[in-house]
């Protein structure tokens, strides 16, 4: 408890240091001689140009690759899975009694010849195990099973489910996600290529009743699925998302399943697969609907953990950063993951803060305004293209204004703090916790 308080105090101290440093910079810049101010202005213009170059390169690379991936199917024609091998579905669940029924109901409606569903109760204190047990037995083509174990975390629960499963393909999902009936058939098509080890599906936000969830719905499409679609074109997806991932058992066994030493077990497993030479591809029609946080603090909490988890996965492979060979796909995945999860958000915060201060201090407001309008237009175009690709409602596109206006910057500030905390190796409060005290 004391160490937790100390960590939190250090985090707050970090915030204070950054705020004070910004204030000192403002005061210094305002009192600086004209020559220094002119120099700062030049620095600002050069920074702006560099930032714009990176930004354009990022957007157009992602959009171009995503477009190529999207059109590839229409040019090559619709693929049909040569075989529909039996699949084991693993559903880890901790205190999920309220949502588990819906998830299992969606699984019972899947259009697939032979399925085994294993619900792994991770030491829940509610009725999760009872709900899972209610569903035990065969329903049509689906055989439901329930396992229970002492609480040990999601990765350990998934590993337990994988070990207890029997089919040659394993589908991992979250207990609060729901699949579309065609999801498994579409994902399975990708395994006609024997070098494919995993298929990342398409996660969509189900609850869209509030501004915060509408923005997340757009973010999932534009900010998360766009890079994944682009990565899929070169068969180098670097995160198979937790709610929807189909794996070849052989690949999972080769890499030893999920590691339990990071907070982003899905990213970590994907990097292990890529590092073992397996292709990881994306299937946009393999859809899972998930519930997004409806509260700003919960959202902060989620993104904080995601960022730190990804950084932990990257830190495990820090020795590879400087060596593109012999494993170029892994190196590329690591670099891309680091850029999207950490470098780009920090750069975005820095740029916004720097340009806003420059506008205030040096009167470079017009430059800032045109830069901001350009960014917003780019986001609008990206939103329009990606929403169209996903055949989603175009009513989401106008939210790109709010997305640029504050949402992305808000999230990037949180990611920046999470990255700083991971950089300074501040604990997340779990080193001494062996199990969740649920009883």
């Amino acid at each position, binding site marked *: *408890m004391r160490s*937790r308080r100390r960590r939190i105090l250090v*985090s707050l101290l970090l*915030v204070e240091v950054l705020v004070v440093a910004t204030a000192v910079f403002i005061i210094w810049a305002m009192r600086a001689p004209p020559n220094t101010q002119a120099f700062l202005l030049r620095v600002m213009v050069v920074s702006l140009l560099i930032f714009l170059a990176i930004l354009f390169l990022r957007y157009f690379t992602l959009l171009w690759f995503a477009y190529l991936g999207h059109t590839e199917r229409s040019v090559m024609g619709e693929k049909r899975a040569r075989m529909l091998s039996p699949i084991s579905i693993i559903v*880890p669940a*901790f*205190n999920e009694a309220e949502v588990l029924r819906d998830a299992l109901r969606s699984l019972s409606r899947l259009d697939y010849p032979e399925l085994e569903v294993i619900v*792994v*109760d991770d030491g829940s204190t509610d009725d999760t195990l009872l709900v899972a*047990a209610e569903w*035990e037995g065969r329903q049509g083509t689906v055989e439901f*099973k*329930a*396992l*229970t*174990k002492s*609480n*040990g*975390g*999601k*990765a350990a629960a998934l590993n*337990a489910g994988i*070990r207890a499963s029997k089919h040659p393909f394993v589908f991992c999902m979250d207990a*609060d996600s729901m699949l579309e009936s065609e999801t498994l058939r579409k994902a399975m098509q990708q395994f006609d290529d024997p070098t494919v080890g995993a298929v990342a599906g398409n996660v969509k936000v189900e609850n869209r009743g509030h501004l915060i969830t509408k923005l997340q719905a757009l973010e999932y499409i534009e900010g998360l699925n766009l890079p994944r679609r682009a990565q899929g074109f070169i068969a180098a997806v670097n995160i198979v998302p937790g709610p929807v991932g189909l794996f070849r058992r052989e690949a999972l066994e080769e890499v030893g399943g999920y590691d*339990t030493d990071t*907070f982003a077990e899905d990213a970590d497993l994907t990097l292990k697969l890529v590092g073992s030479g397996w292709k990881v591809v994306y299937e946009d029609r393999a859809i899972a609907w998930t*519930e997004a*946080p409806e509260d*700003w*603090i919960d959202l*902060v*909490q*989620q993104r*904080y*953990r*995601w960022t730190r988890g990804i950084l932990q996965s990257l830190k495990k492979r820090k020795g590879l950063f400087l060596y593109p060979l012999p494993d170029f796909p892994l190196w590329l995945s690591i670099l891309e993951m680091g850029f999207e999860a950490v470098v780009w958000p920090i750069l975005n915060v820095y740029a*916004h*803060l720097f*340009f*806003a201060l420059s*506008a*205030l201090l040096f009167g470079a*407001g017009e430059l800032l*305004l045109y830069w*901001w309008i350009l960014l917003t237009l780019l986001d609008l175009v990206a939103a329009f293209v990606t929403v169209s690709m996903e055949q989603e409602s175009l009513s989401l596109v106008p939210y790109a204004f709010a997305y640029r*206006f*504050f949402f992305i*910057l*808000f*999230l990037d*500030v949180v990611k920046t*703090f999470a990255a700083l905390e991971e950089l300074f190796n501040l604990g*997340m*409060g*779990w*080193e001494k*916790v*062996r*199990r*969740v005290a649920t009883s």
Partner: protein
Amino acid sequence: MNVVDLLITIVVVTILVTIVLAVITYVAYKLRLSRHPGDDLLTNGDLRFFVPYRPTAPEEGSVTHAAQA
């Protein structure tokens, strides 16, 4: 104040306010953690599993079939 100046003011104020709000929300999250250490594990769907686990015994031993439980 012309339209351009007005837009500049809106953009600058929005950027600064967003950053300040993000910092405040982050601090609120940290304070919530300090007051209710278990909340992050129990209230948010994404977080309930984020507890590293280093088993002392083989995992298979802890898994039991629900029907037998």
